[in-house]
């Protein structure tokens, strides 16, 4: 039951095994809040943004957008209050890193938020925690209360004259609220249906105010960058994708769990060396490298560094770093059914292609799995996916289309066998 700390740690998760680290005192004893003090007392907001830009930090919520640049979009001269939103709606299947960052290092997150708030001039941060994360939300709330008591939040943060408030709010079970504008709608007490753009959040965000939304892990990197500098940060990872990240490894591996490793660590190294490979001497069949929205890679293509510049060449992406491993028993049509159901169930239902396409894909997947599919269905799946991709308000439809394309790109044979034999040829596969 207890939360398992990462098997491999680096600067983010170094102290996660240490129970004291979650408490303000323990956090400070290990150097916590020094970065925030430095930023608030010694740096201008512009300098912080410049530093984060130089560090090359990219958002860790899936899209990988440069954080410093995102912060620079916040309007400077506006009479309106500005807001930060911390996206703690972690719900990308295969991803479970934010949960431990919230539970084991809530002050690290709050410190990152404070620095981000200073840099963007935000007066408030809303931390939107997915509804199911009751425990992580409680841990964070406890930390927020501590920070207020200590004067690290509130009217006069660290006696710098800067004011900042943090509000922890709970979601209620909808994957789409992880999309930043779906999240904003939800924050406003509405259905979590993503907003059309323009306007963009930096102009019209939470409650109509200029807003920047960053993922939990993204904020957590920031204190380390401020303390140790951009060069230090860039000593981790690749030139284009600096820093470490917490990979979540799940599925058919000996040691499923979290691994904080530099970006650019090879996928096969993560799967075989760190996670111990597939158990019981079975062979590996495929790996989804970055959460369920990202296209799968076959066993032969795992020699790829886990950074977008390399993964893109293999037509997939880092996403949230959720690595899902499938062994040779796995039926890829069943995988398609599980993925298809998820996106069918979670589509918000606004855009035509997404609302209707996700359901259709799932039904076709199921039909093929039942042995009632045709050869035409395979191309039909790709055709539907292509009609969804890039054509909707948010990236959800892309996320629903890409895995289908990935499965058919690398495992078309599985689908064809189902059609030919009129049944599922993988009796040992996981049960649907």
């Amino acid at each position: 039951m207890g939360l398992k700390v990462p098997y491999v740690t680096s600067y983010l998760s170094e102290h996660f095994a240490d129970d004291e680290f979650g408490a303000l005192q323990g956090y400070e004893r290990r150097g916590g809040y020094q970065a925030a003090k430095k930023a608030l007392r010694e740096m201008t907001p512009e300098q912080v943004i410049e530093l984060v830009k130089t560090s090359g930090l990219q958002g860790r919520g899936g899209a990988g957008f440069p954080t410093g640049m995102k912060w620079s979009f916040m309007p400077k001269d506006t009479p309106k209050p500005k807001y930060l939103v911390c996206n703690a709606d972690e719900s990308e299947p295969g991803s479970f890193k934010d949960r431990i960052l919230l539970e084991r290092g809530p002050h690290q997150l709050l410190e990152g938020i404070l620095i981000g708030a200073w840099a963007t001039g935000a007066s408030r941060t809303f931390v939107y925690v997915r509804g199911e994360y009751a425990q992580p939300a409680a841990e964070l709330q406890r930390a927020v209360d501590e920070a207020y008591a200590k004067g690290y939040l509130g009217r006069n943060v660290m006696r710098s004259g800067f004011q900042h408030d943090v509000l922890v709010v709970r979601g209620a079970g909808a994957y789409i609220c992880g999309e930043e504008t779906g999240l904003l709608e939800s924050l406003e007490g509405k259905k979590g249906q993503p907003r059309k753009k323009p306007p963009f959040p930096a102009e019209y965000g939470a409650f109509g105010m200029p807003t920047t939304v960053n993922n939990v892990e993204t904020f957590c990197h920031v204190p380390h960058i401020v303390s140790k500098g951009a060069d230090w940060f860039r000593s981790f990872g690749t030139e284009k994708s600096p820093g470490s990240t917490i990979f979540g490894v799940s599925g058919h591996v000996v040691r499923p769990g979290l691994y904080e490793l530099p970006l650019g660590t090879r996928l096969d190294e993560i799967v075989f060396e760190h996670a111990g490979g597939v158990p019981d001497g079975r062979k590996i069949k495929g790996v989804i490298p970055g959460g369920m929205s990202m296209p799968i890679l076959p066993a032969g293509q795992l020699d790829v560094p886990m950074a977008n510049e390399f993964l893109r060449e293999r037509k997939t992406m880092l996403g949230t770093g959720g690595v899902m491993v499938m062994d040779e028993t796995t039926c890829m049509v069943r995988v398609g059914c599980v993925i298809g159901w998820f996106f069918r169930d979670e589509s918000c239902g606004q855009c035509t292609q997404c609302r209707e396409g996700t359901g259709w894909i799932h039904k076709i997947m199921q039909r093929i799995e039942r042995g009632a599919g045709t050869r035409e269905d395979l191309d039909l799946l790709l055709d539907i996916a292509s009609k969804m991709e890039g054509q909707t308000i948010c990236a959800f439809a892309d996320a629903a289309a890409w895995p289908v394309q990935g499965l058919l790109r690398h495992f078309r044979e599985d689908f064809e066998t189902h059609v030919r034999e009129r049944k599922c040829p993988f009796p040992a596969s996981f049960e649907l």
Partner: protein
Amino acid sequence: MVISAETRAKIETEIAKVPQKRGALLAALHLVQAELGHVSLETARELAELFELKPVDVQEVVTFYNMFYDRPQGRHHAYVCTNLPCSLRGARTLLKQLEAHLGVEAGETTADGRITLGHEECLGACAYAPMMRVDGVYHEDLDLAKAKQILDGLK
């Protein structure tokens, strides 16, 4: 009035925290559900009044989110995650066994009103599969015996 004065007071506290009243609607729904178990039409009407919304606006929100229920539920909620990482490690098999054990299908409540059994999408416990969320608490690295024991312990 179905929403108690105590819950109403808590809702007012939540409203005071946000820049616009409606921003506390999800929090309010969590609160009324904690008190009443589900959000009945009457509850939705009362919330609409409290938030100066139309009842249909509240109902839209209730029906959009998985964690809000528009009909009565069992005394306990047990949700098995059946997303891919969990399925790869037997979650769907486990769910079927639990369905047989409780004599209900996923989404249903046992005849004695004790447990509503369901499946959920990824809960962020992918490495610790199979898992289930029982009354908000995560139970991980399950097998059938452990899962049965947990469910049988619910009153």
